[in-house]
């Protein structure tokens, strides 16, 4: 259990608070603006990409770790960061390659697991 001892609990706390805080912003948007879930996700990913592009989001990641990378703003920031880094190596071509490449794991996983789930699961009614 050497791994458990290596966990930085303070880091985990910062992650919890920042991640939860970002979700509170989303919840306020849901309850106050009547935006649909798809629109809220779009807002978060776009804001994340802009903050990432401006170089601001990486400070939040440095502070909160997964508290910043797991919310969809982190997904957007990751896309932007990928594009900017690829541009350094490949110029304009990188603008088109870098973003998706950085997010490829998440996108492919969502598509693959979605397909897999559709093979196995059957639609069910919400009971509540």
């Amino acid at each position: 259990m050497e791994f458990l001892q290596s966990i930085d609990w303070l880091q985990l706390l910062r992650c919890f608070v920042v991640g939860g805080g970002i979700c509170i912003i989303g919840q306020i948007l849901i309850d106050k603006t009547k935006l649909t879930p798809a629109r809220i996700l779009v807002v978060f990913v776009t804001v994340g990409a802009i903050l990432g592009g401006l170089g601001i989001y990486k400070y939040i990641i440095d502070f909160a770790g997964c508290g910043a990378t797991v919310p969809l703003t982190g997904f957007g920031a990751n896309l932007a960061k990928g594009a900017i880094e690829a541009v350094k190596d490949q110029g304009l071509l990188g603008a088109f390659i870098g973003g998706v490449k950085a997010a490829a794991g998440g996108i492919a996983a969502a598509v693959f697991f979605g397909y897999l789930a559709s093979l196995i699961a059957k639609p069910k009614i919400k009971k509540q």
Partner: protein
Amino acid sequence: MSENPLENPQKYNEYVDKKSPNSPILKNCFNAFWVGGLICSIGQIIFDFCKYKGLEQQSSNTVVAIVLIGIAAFLTGLNIFNKIGKFAGAGSLIPITGFANSIVSPAIEYKSEGYVMGVGGKMFTVAGPVLVYGISASVIIGIIATLFA
């Protein structure tokens, strides 16, 4: 009631707002906070474990995303994720789990329309816009970065 709320649509909208119960926003925010924080913390532990095993930062982040997406897909298939979502609202929507749920749920729902146009075609009905805006934003940012390079 002395006034007639049907005088014009604006008045009626204001009247309806008064008549309609509000969402319990404090309770919702509290639930969103702790569930969202918990999901991020699970991600953090996975991340720490990857680092502990010697993976570099970017790869560790990708592993976190894949594992959380896998868990969310699994829970969606078991008809559990929608219960979490009802309880937590943005707490399960905003983390990458919400993105996964928004891809997996139409995939399951539209299975009845076939595997090509149903599952394949409808998979992105909710999450498609996220990719369109996220990827477009990244390309624009990349182009801007090229100009400054």
